[in-house]
C-alpha cells in the first residue's frame, strides 16, 4: 500500500469531493481576507492570545454556532435519506458515518462549547469577579476543545469518518468491524477536547468557590452560577472516566490490547458500562446549565424573584449525585439480570423527582409574576411543556421491563431529542439572545427572534413526535432504510418536513444576527432587560477588568436591590487593578495537540513522539516562565469609566 493511501477516504462520493473543494476555498478566502484587510496582527493580539474570559466565551460561542451548522447539515441528510422507503440518497456506510458524526458533533462540539461559552462570559460577571481563577488555563481549555473539534471535523475528508455511533460500542468499534481510521479520530479528538473540558471544570469550580464578590455567600449566588458550580463538579468527577475509557479504546485499536475485544479475555460490555458512567452524568452536564439559564430568564421576565431558591439548589445537588447511579438504564436489554435492572430502574425514576421539583418552581415563579414575553422568555415558556414530553418518556424508558419494547427504537431517539432540544438548545438560544446585548452592545431583533423561536418549537414537535409512534411500531434506530410495507414512510416524511422547519428556524437566527448587526440601535443601556443580577451592573461593552470597584452583595438579587431598595453596590475608591498578561502559548500548544492527534490517528509514530516532546516542552517553559501580570493604573480606570459612562 502506498504511504499516502491511508489519507484517502474509504468511501468517496461526489458530495465529499465537493466538501473538500468547499473547505479549501473557505480556508483560502479566510487567509486572503485577513491579509487583504491586514487583520493578522489584530487576530493574534486580540483573540488568539487572549486570556480574557469574555473573549474566550465569544470564541466558544462562534465555534458552537459553526458546529451547530455542521451537525445540522448531517441531520438534514439523515432525515432526507429516511424520508421515503428504499431511498438511495445515502448508502449504509455513509449513513453510519453521518449519524455517528451528527451525535458527537452535536453533543460534544456544539452543546458543550455553547454551555461553556455562556459560563465563561457570565459566571465571572455574575459573581462580581475580574476573571476566572486561572485565565491562562482557560485559554488552553478553549484551544484544546477547538483543536479536538477541528481534528474530528477533518475526518470526513482525510481518512474517513467514525461510523460506530456516537456511543462507539465495542466490538463494532474494534479494528475488526471498523477498519478505517474513523474510530481513531473519535477516540483521540474527543480525548483532546475532553481534557480541555476537565480543565474548565477545575477552573470554574475554583473560581466560583473562591472569587465571589464580598458578601456573596454560597446561598446568595445567582441560580446560573449555582448550576455552573454543580455542572463543573460533575465534569471533574465524570470526565476522568471518559479519559481512561477513550485511552483504553485507543490502545485496543492501535496497540492491540484486550480491554474490549471478544477474545483473550476482553469484555465488550465494559465499554458500554464505562461509556455510560461518563455518558449519563454528561447529559446532566448539558441540562443543568440550561436549567440555570431558564431560572435567570424566568425570574427576570416574570419580574419577581425565583420561587423556591433552596429547593432549586437542593434538587441540583440531588441530581448531581443521582446522575452517577443510573448508567445501566442505557442497556437494560443486555442481560445483567432482573435485580440489577430493578435497582437501576428505581434510581432512574428517582432522578425525575428533583427534575420535577424544578419544573414546579418555575411554574410557581410564573404564577404570581408580571410576565413580559421577550424572545428569551418565549423560549423558556415553550421549554416547559416540550421538555415535559421528553422527561415523561424518559421515565417510560426507565422502566426496565417496558424498555425491552422501546430500546433502540425511534422512541428512544424521540426521547432524547425532546429533552435535548427543548431543554438544552432552547436554553442556549434564550441565553444567546439574553446576553447578546452584554456581549456585543446591541439587541437582537425581537420580531425575527420570536419567529425563529416559534419555527424551532414547531419544527421540533413535527420532527420528533412522529418518532414516538414509529418507534412503538417497531422502527429501529440507525437503520439506513426500510421497506414500503412497514408503513413507516408517512412518519418519516413528517419528520423530514419538521427537520426542514427547524432548519429554517436556525437560518432565521443567523439572518437575525446579520440584520441586527446592520440595523439595531447601538444606544442601549447597560441593563436593557431590567434584570436582577450583577452581570448587568457593569457597563456595556464590559471593560476588560469587568468592575472598576468590586461590588458588595447582601442578597441573591444584588442589582435588583440596588435599583429598588437603595442598596449601594459599589463603595470606595478606585485602586489599581491586577490583570493577567496575554499569552500565545495556549494557542501554540493547541496546534501541537492537533498535530499530535493527527499523528496518533494515523499511527505515525515519529511525528507522534516529536509532538509529545513539544507538548512537554511547552509545559516546562511555563514552569520556568516568570509572569506576574500587569497593573491597570487608577488614571487609566478613570479614563475608561468616564468614557463608558458617557456612552450610556
Amino acid at each position: 500500500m502506498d504511504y499516502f493511501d491511508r489519507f484517502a477516504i474509504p468511501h468517496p462520493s461526489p458530495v465529499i469531493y465537493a466538501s473538500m473543494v468547499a473547505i479549501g476555498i473557505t480556508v483560502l478566502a479566510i487567509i486572503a481576507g485577513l491579509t487583504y484587510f491586514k487583520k493578522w496582527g489584530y487576530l493574534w493580539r486580540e483573540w488568539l492570545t487572549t486570556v480574557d474570559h469574555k473573549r474566550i466565551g465569544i470564541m466558544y460561542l462562534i465555534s458552537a454556532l459553526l458546529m451547530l451548522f455542521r451537525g445540522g447539515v448531517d441531520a438534514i441528510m439523515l432525515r432526507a435519506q429516511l424520508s421515503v422507503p428504499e431511498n438511495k440518497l445515502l448508502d449504509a456506510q455513509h449513513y453510519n458515518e453521518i449519524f455517528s458524526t451528527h451525535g458527537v458533533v452535536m453533543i460534544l462540539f456544539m452543546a458543550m462549547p455553547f454551555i461553556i461559552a455562556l459560563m465563561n462570559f457570565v459566571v465571572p460577571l455574575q459573581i462580581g469577579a475580574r476573571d476566572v481563577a486561572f485565565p491562562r488555563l482557560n485559554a488552553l481549555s478553549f484551544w484544546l476543545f477547538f483543536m479536538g473539534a477541528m481534528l474530528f471535523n477533518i475526518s470526513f475528508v482525510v481518512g474517513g469518518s467514525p461510523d460506530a455511533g456516537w456511543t462507539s460500542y465495542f466490538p463494532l468499534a474494534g479494528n475488526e468491524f471498523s477498519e478505517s481510521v474513523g474510530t481513531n479520530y473519535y477516540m483521540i479528538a474527543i480525548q483532546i477536547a475532553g481534557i480541555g473540558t476537565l480543565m474548565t471544570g477545575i477552573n470554574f469550580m475554583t473560581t466560583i468557590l473562591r472569587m465571589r464578590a464580598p458578601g456573596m455567600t454560597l446561598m446568595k449566588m445567582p441560580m446560573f452560577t449555582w448550576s455552573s458550580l454543580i455542572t463543573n463538579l460533575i465534569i471533574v468527577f465524570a470526565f476522568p472516566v471518559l479519559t481512561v475509557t477513550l485511552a483504553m479504546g485507543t490502545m485496543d485499536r492501535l496497540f492491540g490490547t484486550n480491554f474490549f475485544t471478544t477474545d483473550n479475555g476482553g469484555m465488550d460490555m465494559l465499554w458500554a458500562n464505562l461509556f455510560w458512567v461518563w455518558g449519563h452524568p454528561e447529559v446532566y452536564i448539558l441540562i443543568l446549565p440550561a436549567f440555570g439559564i431558564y431560572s435567570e430568564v424566568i425570574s427576570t421576565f416574570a419580574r419577581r424573584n425565583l420561587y423556591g431558591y433552596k429547593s432549586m439548589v437542593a434538587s441540583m445537588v440531588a441530581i448531581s449525585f443521582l446522575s452517577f447511579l443510573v448508567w445501566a438504564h442505557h442497556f437494560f436489554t443486555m442481560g445483567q439480570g432482573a435485580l440489577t435492572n430493578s435497582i437501576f430502574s428505581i434510581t432512574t425514576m428517582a432522578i425525575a423527582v428533583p427534575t420535577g421539583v424544578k419544573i414546579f418552581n418555575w411554574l410557581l415563579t410564573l404564577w404570581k409574576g408580571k410576565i413580559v414575553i421577550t424572545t428569551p422568555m418565549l423560549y423558556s415558556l415553550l421549554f416547559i411543556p416540550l421538555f415535559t414530553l421528553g422527561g415523561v418518556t424518559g421515565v417510560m424508558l426507565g422502566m426496565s421491563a417496558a424498555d425491552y419494547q422501546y430500546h433502540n427504537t425511534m422512541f428512544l431517539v424521540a426521547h432524547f431529542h425532546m429533552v435535548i432540544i427543548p431543554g438544552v438548545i432552547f436554553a442556549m438560544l434564550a441565553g444567546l439572545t439574553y446576553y447578546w446585548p452584554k456581549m456585543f452592545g446591541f439587541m437582537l431583533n425581537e420580531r425575527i427572534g420570536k419567529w425563529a423561536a416559534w419555527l424551532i418549537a414547531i419544527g421540533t414537535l413535527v420532527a420528533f413526535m412522529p418518532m414516538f409512534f414509529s418507534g412503538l411500531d417497531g422502527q429501529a434506530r440507525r437503520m439506513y432504510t426500510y421497506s414500503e410495507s412497514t408503513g413507516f414512510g408517512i412518519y418519516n416524511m413528517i419528520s423530514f418536513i419538521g427537520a426542514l422547519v427547524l432548519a429554517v428556524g436556525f437560518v432565521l437566527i443567523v439572518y437575525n444576527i446579520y440584520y441586527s448587526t446592520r440595523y439595531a440601535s447601538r444606544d442601549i443601556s447597560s441593563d436593557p432587560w431590567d434584570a436582577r443580577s450583577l452581570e448587568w451592573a457593569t457597563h456595556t461593552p464590559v471593560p476588560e477588568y469587568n468592575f472598576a470597584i468590586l461590588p458588595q452583595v447582601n442578597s441573591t438579587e444584588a442589582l435588583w436591590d440596588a435599583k429598588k431598595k437603595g442598596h449601594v453596590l459599589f463603595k470606595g475608591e478606585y485602586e489599581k487593578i491586577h490583570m493577567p498578561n496575554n499569552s500565545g502559548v495556549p494557542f501554540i500548544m493547541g496546534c501541537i495537540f492537533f498535530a499530535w492527534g493527527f499523528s496518533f490517528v494515523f499511527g505515525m509514530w515519529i511525528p507522534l513522539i516529536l509532538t509529545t516532546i513539544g507538548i512537554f516542552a511547552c509545559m516546562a517553559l511555563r514552569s520556568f516562565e516568570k509572569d506576574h501580570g500587569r497593573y491597570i493604573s487608577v488614571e487609566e480606570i478613570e479614563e475608561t469609566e468616564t468614557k463608558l459612562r458617557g456612552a450610556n
Partner: protein
Amino acid sequence: MKIDNSLPLEYSTEENRLKVLGFWIFLGAEIMLFATLFATYFTLFDRTAGGPTGAEIFEITPVLIETILLLTSSFTIGLGIHAMRLGNKKAMLSFFAITLLLGAGFLGFEIFEFVTYVHEGAGLQTSAFTSILLTTLGTHGAHVTLGLFWGLFIILQVKKRGLTPETANKSFIFSLYWHFLDVVWIFIFSFIYLKGMM
C-alpha cells in the same frame, strides 16, 4: 500582589490560595481517573485467557523495595516542606533531592519489573488481565516520571530564585502531588499485588 504574612509562604497570596484549591480539585479528578482503572482491573483480573495470572508473575521482593522507596520519599518530601516552612532553603533542597532520587529508584525497579513481565509472557497484548495490569501500573509510573521532571524544575527554580511566595507555592503543590502518588501506590500494593499473590 498583596502578601499576607500571617500565613505560610505558600498560602500568602490570593493567587497562591487559588492554586492550592485548584490543585486539590485536580486531585479529585485524579482519584476518579485511578478509580476507573481500579474498577476495570477488578472487572478483568481473572480474565487471563490462558496467559499468566497475577499469582504467577508477581514477586514480592521488587514490589516491597518499590513500596519502601516510595513511602520513604513521601516522608522526605514532608520533611522538605517542613524545612521550607522554617525558611531553611538548603535543608529543603536536600530533602527534595533525596525525594527525587528515591523516586528515580522506584522507577528503576518498576522498569525492571515490566521487563521481567514481558519476558515471562505477560505483555500488553497477552490478555485482558495483562492489558489492564500494565496500564494501571504504567499510568502510575508515568505520573512518577512526570513528577521527577517537575520536581527537578522546582529545585532549579528554588535554587535560583530562593524561597518566594511563588516557588514555595509550587513546591507545596508538588508535595501534594507526590503524596497523592504514594496513596495510589498503597492501593496498588494492597489490591493488585497482595491480593493477587494470595
